[in-house]
């Protein structure tokens, strides 16, 4: 049945009618029905692989359904593609940033639809219009700058502003805040509210419940390619929603045992400075301990980890590993000393997408899987299988390219890589970013298991909520130095947040 209005008399903007999308070997969407109305903010929830991205791709014309119909503004989208969807008023902001780093902000703004003047593209009109839209969002980003010169957060804002350029009827935001700091999240949420008030329908994909509670009136929950339910956000508690997402009761969250005994000091950092981001940071981490580092984007977290791992030059201070002061901190030496770093940007710096899962795991140390200098496939398989099993990496065949795994499983493989290398101190930079609820829990369990074997784990996260679940101690980094320290079980969320945000409030 094709309806045109909802109970409140609001016009239906977009509809999926019995839509199925099959890819070789997977049914990504299984006879899904979905509709959204003018002025509505709808959260789209589900674990990775639940079908959210596929639904978005279909609504925005990037992909076509195997069967079923996508209607936008009452008209069948058919195979009209991205342009067809755009003409009907769909604007999408994808999870992966889709700016061209080499073009200016203004050019990115009008990507593919540059305004024409009398003599070709009208640059000044382009810059003026881009500035106007950015102003409306309360941003002072200079449209004449190259997009590549912006921070990640600024790029995200440019993307959202761009999506609003053509005054869309349906705005799709796929995890728009996953890279943003608190203040900017507020800015984005505020913008979304403003946009919805003008009658635009908004589909909002996010893993962050607090954001969803702030802006969405209803939430559609997906699981295994199906729409499970659409609930009113105000009338459902988080546990209910998570239960719908998981299909089972969420496990009682592990409380960190505060009576745990730790071993020797494994990592000691004294007065470390990496200009201009990190100044005079000192910390101690013991064998068997998980130390969390909280801090907003730009607080110097990644820079601190990169410096400890020897990737960035240290401007002052010392790093002591297992009692040995490291005089020259090069990546090679630090690795030898037992440091393993899993980077924040998993796709670009963590995994080699086209290589096998097994190879991604053993690449940190080829010597141990070689015989007489020649790689041994049996040894590779044995090592990889062993680690995949310990880390619950879900894969049919470890020889498959790692890009076939979900984000959570990819992350586990990256952590496994450093266990394979025999690292004693693991530096995990945002290991749970963009990972679903279930995989998050597994990653905490892996960290704990690794620590229980006497290793030291440093866990950086911008989702403050997860730090008390996993850490024995949490250090709060702000403006490049450590502001506060909390020890389990007294890791208080609101105090943690306050400490990391103090300069913003």
């Amino acid at each position, binding site marked *: 049945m094709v309806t045109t209005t909802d109970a409140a008399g609001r016009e239906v903007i977009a509809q999926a009618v019995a839509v199925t999308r099959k890819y070789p070997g997977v049914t990504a969407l299984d006879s899904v029905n979905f509709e959204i109305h003018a002025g509505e903010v709808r959260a789209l929830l589900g674990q990775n692989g639940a079908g959210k991205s596929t639904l978005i791709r279909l609504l925005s014309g*990037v992909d076509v359904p195997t069967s079923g119909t996508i209607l936008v503004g009452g008209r069948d989208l058919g195979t009209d*593609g*991205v*342009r067809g969807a*755009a003409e009907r008023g769909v604007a*999408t902001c*994808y999870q*992966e940033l*889709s*700016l*061209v*780093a*080499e*073009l200016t902000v203004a*050019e990115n703004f009008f*990507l*593919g*639809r*540059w305004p*024409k003047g009398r*003599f*070709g*593209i009208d640059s000044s009109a382009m810059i003026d219009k881009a500035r106007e839209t950015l102003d409306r969002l309360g*941003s*002072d*980003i*200079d449209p*004449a*700058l*190259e997009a590549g*010169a912006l*921070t*990640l*957060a*600024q790029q995200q804002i440019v993307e959202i502003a761009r999506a609003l350029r053509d005054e869309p009827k349906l705005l799709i935001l796929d995890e728009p805040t996953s890279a943003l*700091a608190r*203040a*900017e999240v*507020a*800015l984005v949420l505020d913008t979304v509210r403003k946009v919805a008030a003008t009658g635009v329908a908004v589909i909002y994909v996010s893993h962050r419940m607090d954001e969803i509670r702030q802006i969405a009136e209803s939430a559609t929950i997906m699981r295994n390619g199906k729409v499970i339910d659409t609930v009113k956000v105000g009338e459902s508690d988080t546990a209910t929603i998570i239960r719908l997402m998981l299909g089972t009761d969420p496990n009682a969250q592990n409380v960190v045992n505060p009576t745990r005994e730790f071993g020797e000091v494994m990592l000691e950092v004294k007065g470390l400075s990496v200009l201009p981001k990190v100044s005079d940071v000192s910390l101690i981490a013991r064998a068997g301990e998980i130390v969390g580092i909280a801090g*907003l*984007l*730009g*607080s110097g977290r990644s820079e601190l980890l990169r410096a400890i791992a020897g990737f960035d030059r240290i401007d002052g201070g010392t790093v002591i590993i297992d009692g040995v002061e490291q005089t020259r901190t090069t990546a090679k030496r630090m690795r030898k000393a037992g440091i393993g770093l899993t980077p924040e940007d998993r796709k670009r710096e963590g995994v080699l997408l086209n290589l096998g899962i097994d190879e991604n795991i053993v690449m940190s140390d080829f010597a141990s899987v070689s015989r007489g200098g020649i790689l041994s496939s049996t040894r590779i398989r044995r090592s990889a299988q062993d680690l995949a099993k310990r880390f619950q990496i879900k894969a049919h065949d470890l020889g498959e390219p790692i890009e076939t795994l979900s984000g959570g499983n990819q992350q586990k493989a990256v952590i496994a890589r450093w266990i394979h290398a025999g690292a004693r101190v693991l530096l995990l930079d945002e290991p749970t970013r963009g990972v679903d609820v279930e995989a998050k829990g597994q990653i905490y369990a892996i960290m704990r298991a690794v620590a229980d074997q006497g290793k030291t784990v440093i866990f950086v996260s911008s989702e403050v909520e997860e730090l008390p679940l996993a850490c024995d101690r949490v250090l709060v980094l702000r*403006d490049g130095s450590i502001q506060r320290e909390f020890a389990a079980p007294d890791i208080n969320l609101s105090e943690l947040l306050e400490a990391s945000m103090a*300069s*913003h409030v």
Partner: protein
Amino acid sequence: MTETPLAQAPSTARRAMTRLTSNTTLVNVIGLLGAIILLYVYLSYSATGFLNLSNQLGLLRQAALVGVAATGMTLVIIAGEIDVSVGPAVALSSVIVAESVRNWGLPTIAAIVITLIVATAWGALAGVLRARFRVPSFIATLGLWSILRGIGQFWTNAIPVPLPDNDPIMNVLAGSIFGVPTPAWGMIIIFLVIAFVARKTSYGRSVFAIGGNAAAARLAGIGVARVRIILFATMGFLAAISGIFLAARLGSGNAGAADGLEFDVIAAVVIGGTAMSGGRGSLIGTFLGVIFITLIGNGLVLLGVNSFLQNVIRGAIIVAAVLLNVTLSRRRSSQSED
């Protein structure tokens, strides 16, 4: 609430610095201009006859041969592609125009039009292979390189095909207008047109967008396949123009001509600051790159360097120039990439 996001508050001064230093084109152009001036000063002292009018005009003719194709190659490389078929394409074009005048008795204008159409078509074919069938452009044009050279040599038995004397159009193309060789005019006009296209048209900006981030370009609704096909078709078209000028100058179509031209063309583009990784480059840089390459070639001849050794020196200078370029732009970019 007075929130100033941490990551979003660079000082105005820093912002201005970023904009200045991120202008790789400007830095590159100044460097190349300096190098060209130095070459001029050095050669006018040490190479006899360098500053002669005839040598300078000859320089312009030689520059035109490289320059016409280099305009299109700049866009091709900015889009993250490569075309290695330029030399044989120029040679075969010269053969086609000569054959159609001499053996088919076509009027010169018709011969020229046919040559342009045929060359554009084979360029488009390479583009289709790249865009629709995902054949890497290096391979598609490498195949074309071999095929075009082979066709020309098979067709003519590798013997030059003479053009009739006193063909008025060919005489104009081989001659000068206002004292400047016609091919040089052609090169200048094509540079201006392509520079305008690159900066001021949707097509040109799409080329930059595709080279910078093809996935983003596709999501923005840019017809990536169409742009790629046009890119290679343009290369065919420009090769034909060079081939016609070449035939006019030599008085014949020659299947063995323009040997190794593709390397001069690619070198000129890269010396001009266009990134092989795509997304970045400029026509003014390429223009100076063409002048630079031509000057070096001319200088080595005038200095009487052994012709085998000339290749060695030219190769070393080209690599050194690009090395310098890459080093400078790496220092300018804030993040180290390895």
